[in-house]
């Protein structure tokens, strides 16, 4: 949960036709319209669509790495996000989870991706 005002939002992007996507794109993937506003998912509760525990992780990634795809519902419109789980204990398909901010999800520069090319902070999902 985003309790701190300095934590960045977990922004889904919405087009003028009401479709949501996370992350945002140059055009709405559903209809091709411009995405004109954002909806912060950080304070919302989502539901685990599916999850896994990865034990063969690349350089700079925690091992084991628990991951989930989580679905949020915003005013009747579904939007999904993938993220690390804080724990796999008790997690099942359908488990309710909340986003928890993490300053560094994996070690920048340990893998092949240029450290300056992208953000490395973000949200893990914590079972409620």
């Amino acid at each position: 949960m985003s309790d701190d005002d300095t934590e960045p939002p977990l922004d889904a992007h919405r087009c003028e036709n009401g479709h949501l996507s996370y992350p945002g794109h140059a055009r709405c993937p559903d209809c091709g319209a411009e995405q004109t506003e954002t909806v912060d998912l950080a304070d919302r509760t989502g539901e685990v669509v599916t999850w896994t525990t990865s034990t063969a992780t690349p350089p700079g990634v925690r091992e084991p790495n628990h991951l989930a795809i989580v679905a949020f519902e915003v005013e009747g419109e579904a939007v999904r996000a993938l993220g690390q789980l804080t724990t796999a204990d008790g997690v099942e398909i359908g488990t309710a989870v909340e986003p928890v901010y993490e300053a560094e999800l994996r070690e920048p520069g340990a893998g092949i991706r240029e450290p300056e090319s992208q953000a490395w902070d973000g949200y893990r999902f914590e079972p409620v």
Partner: protein
Amino acid sequence: MDRVAIVGASMTQFGDRDEWLLDLLAEAGDAALSDAGVDGADLDHLYVSNMASGEFEGQTGVPNALAHDLAAMPAYTARIDQTSSSGGAGIYAAWQSVASGASDVTLLVGGEKMTHRTTGEATDVIASLTHPVEYKHGVTLPSFAGLTARKYLDQYDAPRESLGKVAVKNHRNGLDNPHAQFRKEVDLETVLDSPIVADPLRLYDFCPITDGSAGLVFCPESVAAEYTDDYVVVSGVAGATDTHVVHERDDPTTMRGVVESSRQAYEMAGLGPDDVDVAELHDMFTILEFLQSEDLGFFEKGEGWKAVEDGVTDRDGDLPINTSGGLKSKGHPLGASGVAQAYELYQQLLGRAGDRQVDAEIGLACNVGGFGNCVTTTILEQP
């Protein structure tokens, strides 16, 4: 319209090779030219399917290097990168070059050199195809497979054992493939007891890291007989994309790139899924064989696992899938895999598959890039 024929094909030994990429490509390219009776100087176009020679080996500009090694100058060259489906995309490019009239003879060589990297490094090179919001969480292609497998088993009430049976089947097929990386039978217990890689999937649900190369020679069907009596025809080929960000798909158990590319390939060939006699599917992970066999229309959605349980996809079944051993047993040198799928179909359709031979006039190959992000479906037929 004059159709496009394949008049020569080759595949190197797949596995842990001492040679580096340029030598692997030259080995397969030379063998494909010899098989077709074509000289390098005859080539108008030369394509190399390869995902990441720069990242794996620090060698770029490989198509030009191959043209030089095969004495193919001044042939036009280009590298085709579509991640794991670079080979299928190369078939599409080679087909276009001949079908358009731009080239009278085209050589396609797919290859990758990977085994000098650690598993973690190779996994990271492949995972670099993901979106930044995926990559920062340490997601890998195997972890997408774990996420999808759990959803599939739950949604369609399929037993975990059914995934293991894909591995058992493909390893059994690979026993008879002299070019395969693994020629070793495995039993279901071994698969189900192997170490977890991406829960619920285990080590034997995944293809290995592989070096290797494969080649194909294309020309118009009207002149194919000038090269050889034995050729096959590309009767359908098409490519399609799905979302780059995997979690944005409404149904994680459907690969729309497979659905759409096969729809177009069937339409071009004037065929449907029931006409296919043998198929090579992209079993980078066991779960992918279920998804493709359904999304290609071979089986109803959620029923692909039953076909494996019932032996329908065995070598002696109604629709043999992955007679080569698949990526699972044959190995998966990224850029080579789609080309090697067509090599297997070429051998099957020409009756050259030895102990792997099945009765087939029409073969289909489905080559998947990313986690279904970009797909090419190819249909080959006897003339």
